[in-house]
Every structure is written in structure tokens, then in C-alpha cells.
């Protein structure tokens, strides 16, 4: 019997894991809590259809279940889930399907404008930034997606991509420079 969403909402991430280890039905909670954001993330990093994203999610959740005891208590559950989803998508799907074309919404575009410290921001439209982001090498684009689209901090990005925080900062900086360059 599946656990209701209301019941799941009362549990913290840690409690959810412990409950799932006792009773597999509680694993539903992990799915319900993170499904939408993980699916959105898959669609941003790989050119897959929504149905294929579902398949990736399903495969990844089986993997998550198998490795439930490997969760690092010092890491956020969401970072760990993103890491597995990222690896699953990259290794099995992105090679075949290629990287997704990102669509920029107004809020994200505004944040990127501010971060670029671009004085001529009024002259730059969302489309130009979008084109610049989509033209970035994959390793820079991955960091931009996590930072601006998934609102992750450096530590979370470091945990997801398994790179030092310093490297996250360097990649982000280079990505911003590349976007700036593309805009002028």
C-alpha cells in the first residue's frame, strides 16, 4: 500500500530514508517529494522526451533504492538524488540524445543579468542570453543549470558534480565570461 502524500509531507528527508529502509512503501515519499524537480532537471540536461525522462527517473530510483544505505548523512538528500540522476542521464542518455536546448524564463534571465553585472542589460534580450547559454560547453552549462535553474549553492553543485567547490567557482566564472563575450 502506497503512503499518502500528506503522510509523506510530515517526514523529514532523514526520517523518510529510515522509514523506507524499514518499509519499502515509504520509498514512495522520496519519489513524490523530488519527482517534479528531478524530471525538470533531466529535461534541462538532455534532449529527451518527457516519457524518456520518466524512464530515466524510474531507472534512477531503482538505483537509489539499491544504494539507500550509501547516503552520506552530511550531504543533502536532494544533492545525492541529483547526483544519481545526473550520472544516469549523462551516461545513458545524453551521449545518444545530445544536450537539451534550454528555455530561459524571465526570473532566471533577470538573475543572470544581475550576476553578469552588465551595465547594458536593458539592451540584452532573454533570447540572446538563452542562445549564449545553449552555446556553452557542457561542463559550463551543467554548472549554470544547477546554479540558476535549480538554485543550488556551491556546496550542493560540488556534491552533485563531484568536483571541488573551487572548480565550481572557476567554471561558473568562465561560463559567465563566455556568456558576456557572446553577448557583445
Amino acid at each position, binding site marked *: 500500500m*502506497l503512503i499518502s*502524500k500528506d503522510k509523506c509531507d510530515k517526514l523529514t528527508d532523514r526520517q523518510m530514508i529510515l522509514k523506507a*529502509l524499514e518499509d*519499502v*512503501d515509504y*520509498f*514512495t515519499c522520496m*519519489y*513524490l517529494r523530488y*519527482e517534479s524537480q528531478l524530471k525538470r532537471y533531466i529535461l534541462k540536461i538532455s534532449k529527451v522526451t518527457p516519457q524518456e525522462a*520518466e524512464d530515466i*527517473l*524510474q531507472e534512477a*530510483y*531503482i538505483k537509489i*533504492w*539499491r*544504494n*539507500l*544505505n*550509501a547516503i*552520506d548523512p552530511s550531504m543533502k538528500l536532494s544533492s545525492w538524488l541529483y547526483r544519481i540522476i545526473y550520472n544516469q542521464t549523462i551516461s545513458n542518455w545524453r551521449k545518444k540524445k545530445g544536450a537539451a536546448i534550454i528555455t530561459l524564463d524571465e526570473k532566471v534571465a533577470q538573475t543572470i543579468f544581475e550576476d553578469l553585472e552588465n551595465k547594458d542589460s536593458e539592451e540584452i534580450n532573454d533570447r540572446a542570453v538563452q542562445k549564449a547559454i545553449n552555446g556553452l560547453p557542457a561542463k559550463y552549462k551543467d554548472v549554470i543549470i544547477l546554479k540558476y535553474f535549480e538554485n543550488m549553492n556551491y556546496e550542493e553543485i*560540488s556534491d552533485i558534480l*563531484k*568536483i*571541488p*567547490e*573551487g*572548480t565550481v567557482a572557476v567554471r561558473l566564472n568562465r561560463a559567465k565570461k563566455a556568456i558576456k563575450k557572446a553577448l557583445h
Partner: protein
Amino acid sequence: MFKLKLLAMDNPKKIIDIIKNENIRPTPGWVFTAKRLLTWSIFSMTILLGSLAFAVILFTIQESDFSITSHMGHSGVEFFLSLLPIIWLVFVVIFLGMAILSIRNSWKGYKFSLLKQVSISVGMSIALGTLLFILGGGKWIEKVYDVNVSSYESLEERKQNMWSRPDEGYLSGTISSIEDNNMTIVDFNGQQWRITDLESSFIANAVMLENGELIKLIGESEGDNVFSVKEIRPWGGRGNNRGINKNSGVRGPLQ
């Protein structure tokens, strides 16, 4: 709305069904703990082995007379370079590489930059290697390696070869007699040599000039097992560089 909620529940149900039907169980926690322990054990082991190799390098440097290169011609320098512990340098590099790889594959290894990974491995190997060298580990491991690896030419053997070339000005052996300005030594081939010009030679402080003492000499062979000496150093290491010239009148049993 209710229909949508049901649809949303459809996917987790599929996953739970797969898990139940295929009886998939989470890998036990001890497997992950064991993996982490194994990674750290490999790291510790490679650091220890790298440190031992580094201790041997320190031992080799201690035993070598780098200052004598100034006396040597091209072929002599070449020969001297052959004394360098190349194999141990290779070992240090290999074990350092393995240590860095094990950090990278460790649980939180990705948190360290390559520079930090290298610094940690090199720093630990140098610190532990120096300690092992002080405790005599360098000498011990070199000896163990010499005994167990037949193709390995030990430092002692290479050193003996280096210092058994009287025609090129390098001689070594045990003092068999010493009286006033006359000294005789027996080299590693069992040959007896009369050493001349002791009074004008440089004698390192560590040299006691006693019967039975093993020494190395720099000078010139004058034929018929006579060797005109310019410098006398102790066999082990370079001795004290504050060695004196007998003519300066500072020190020496021959004065």
C-alpha cells in the same frame, strides 16, 4: 484533481511493484563501509610504501658524497649519477600516483583539488619518510630489497664500484696499519695499498685514522699499489665538511 493525483501515484507504484516483484533489496551498509575502508587502506598503504622509498632516497643521499662531483671529469660525473637512487625515485612517483588516485576515489575525495591531493600525498610521504629514515627504515628496506631482489644492485655495491677505481683517483678500503706519515689500506678486492702524502691531504672531521677504519680516498695512483692521497673521507656518508688540511695545523692525528 483526484484523477491527477491518482496519475501522480502511478509512477511510484510502478517502482514499488518492481522492487517488490523482483525482490530488490538495498545493498547492506557494511558493503559501503568496507569499500570506504578499503580505499583508505590502499591510500595508507601507498603512503607508507612511498615513505619507505623516500626514506631509502634520504639514506642514499646521506651515503653519497655529492661534493666530490667537483673533482670529477665528465665520465666520473656520469658514473656518479649512476649512484642516484633512480629506482626509488620511480617507486616514490608510482606510490604517490596511487595515493592520489585513492584519494580521488575516496568518499569525499572530490572535495579536494588536484593540488590539495598532491600536497597531502607528498607532504605525508615526506614527513613519514623522514621519520622512517631517522629510525633507520631507509637502510633496512634497502638491505631487505638487496637480499630479496637478485637483479638489484645495492647502494653498497654501487658505492664499492665507484670507490674501487684507483686509476681514476678513487680508492677505498680498511686501514691495516698507520704509523707517522705512512698508512696502508686493504681495498675491497683484498689488495694492499700504500698511501702517501698524508701530511698534505684534506681529512674530514669524521675520519679517526685508526686501524680497521673503513675510508675512501681521492687522489692519484702512482702505480705498484701506491696511492698519493688528496682527500680522506669516512666510508659512511660525506663526513663533516669542516675537514681540515693538515698543513693548516688545525687538526689531525699525524701532526
